[in-house]
């Protein structure tokens, strides 16, 4: 058993990470840590560098500068302690692959040779399917699952090897609001049950606000890190973007708007429901979160 120190030591540490891709500086001096069991949102507009951060943590992209430690060790040796959930997978609806087959591949998908049947593995797959409420479609073909069902199966696939960190790339992007909410609730519950920290990228932070412990806000290749109320503030984000942006809070939702903006009284009633709103102020455009 790991000692007290290991239980509180960060599962992920990035220090001064910089990446250039095709001559363009994608990330510059990115540093943050994630503690055991923490739920962290990796928030930023499309193209801000969120995916590059995830690829670095997965070991698919080597940083030009800086250090990446998973469980206190360099990445290459700790591959198994990071689980990954892609946005979606595209499988032919006729393809002979059941949800439970995909979950089982989470245990040993990289191994060579035929798989020997094992009672223990079968039980483990069953447990994992139940943990993500996927028991009732465990025998359905993966290609016929809905977006929300597919996300559950992919989460089970990623968690079955008991990683300490779960990476999720825009899991809510292809889901309707209700399925998205179900996935967020599931993750909030399962990270305590499975003892796993979650790093989830999203361009809209609002569905995640109730469950996020911390936020890593990405803009222009740099990050601002902290609790949501520390980071999502006009001064902090303006410094990060390098120009004036405004953080508006409307009906419990957060909007980040470029330029100086405030919502006049009458607009408030409806503004909570819109993402890109044409404000009557001098701000003009609203950044899509």
């Amino acid at each position, binding site marked *: 058993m790991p000692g007290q120190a290991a239980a509180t030591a960060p599962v992920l540490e990035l220090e001064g990470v910089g990446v250039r891709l095709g001559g363009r500086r994608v990330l510059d001096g990115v540093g943050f840590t994630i503690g055991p069991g923490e739920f962290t949102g990796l928030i930023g507009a499309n193209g801000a560098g969120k995916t590059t951060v995830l690829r670095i943590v997965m070991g698919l992209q080597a940083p030009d500068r800086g250090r990446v430690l998973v469980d206190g060790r360099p990445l290459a040796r700790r591959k198994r302690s990071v689980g990954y959930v892609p946005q979606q997978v595209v499988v032919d609806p006729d393809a*002979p692959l059941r949800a439970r087959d995909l979950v089982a591949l989470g245990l040993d998908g990289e*191994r060579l040779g035929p798989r020997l049947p094992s009672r223990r593995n079968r039980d483990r797959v069953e447990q994992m399917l139940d943990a993500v409420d996927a028991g009732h479609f465990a025998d359905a073909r993966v290609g016929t699952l809905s977006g929300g069902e597919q996300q559950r199966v992919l989460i089970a696939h990623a968690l079955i090897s008991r990683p300490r960190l779960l990476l999720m790339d825009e899991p809510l992007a292809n889901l309707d609001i209700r399925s998205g909410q179900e996935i967020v609730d599931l993750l909030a519950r399962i990270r305590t049950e499975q003892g796993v920290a979650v790093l989830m990228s999203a361009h809209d932070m609002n569905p995640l606000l109730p469950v996020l412990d911390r936020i890593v806000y990405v803009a222009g290749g740099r990050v601002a890190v902290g609790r949501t109320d520390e980071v999502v503030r006009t001064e902090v984000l303006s410094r990060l973007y390098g120009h004036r942006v405004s953080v508006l809070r409307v009906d419990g939702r957060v909007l980040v708007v470029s330029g100086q903006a405030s919502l006049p009284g009458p607009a408030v009633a409806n503004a909570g429901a819109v993402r890109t709103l044409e404000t009557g102020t001098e701000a003009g455009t609203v950044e899509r979160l």
Partner: protein
Amino acid sequence: MGTVVHTVFAPGFFSSDPVRLAVVTGLMVALVSGALGVFTVLRGQSFAGHALSDLGTLGGSSAALAGVGPLWGFVGVGVVVAGVMELFGTRQRRSRDVATGLVLSAALGLSALFLYIGTTMDSTTGVTVTILFGSLFTVSGGTVPLLVLLGAATLAVLTVLYRPLLLGSVSAELAAARGIPVRLLGLAFLVLLALATALSSMSVGTILSPALLVGPAATALRLTRRPVAAMALAGAVGTAATWIGIVLAYDSYRWPPTGRGWPVSFFVVTLVFALYLLTDAAARISTARSRRRDQDPQYPTAAPAPAGVN
């Protein structure tokens, strides 16, 4: 009893050497095609199967022109083409479709030239038909051990790579996240597919080889959701079609119009198609039946979920 057996199996069937070779060849080809066919559907690469068979015609015809066995031509060209396809990517964007189609037609045009020269030069009129449509009864005794060896090797490699290939078929991203070398795996799969196409070209010819690759697999997918079971079933369906085809083709030497026999390939491909139609109809009937049950007010829990629920 004896007459019944003789009605199905024409006299001399079991003692005929070409029949024995055809039975062995047909079995190996069906097993390899079945397994690779299922993976082709899983990976959404049936186009690659078609391209490989079109270009295989070029390989077979140039081998015939050079005086070596067609299997060498099929395998050689197939493996080279697999490498080229991996380089350019087989999951192509739409804009490249026209160019690809043009390259394949050009290859077939060249094959037509080679076949024409081959036929007119040494008057072996059979070569065109053999390469395009196959001829299980003319597989030479010397080729069979090589063919069996290639088939066994293909199945062995597929067994070793099974899990990474399966995961990579679902999502290259998922596989890469586990440290699986995705591109290398894709190349390995295309080489295996090239070998399977070469083998099925030996059985039913290049033109019909996609049918043997995809047909039994499609039938198996109607019957099972499990990957390994699907591969085994596809192999069984292919074997059944091939063996029954061999029996019928042997019988057909007593049939009209010429009394010189009907081609085995015709029977094999027709049987593959018939088996697919049969299972598809059965699957449709059973889905329709379960849907009727779902709509029955006596089964309220099975009613369709409201929109938005998963």
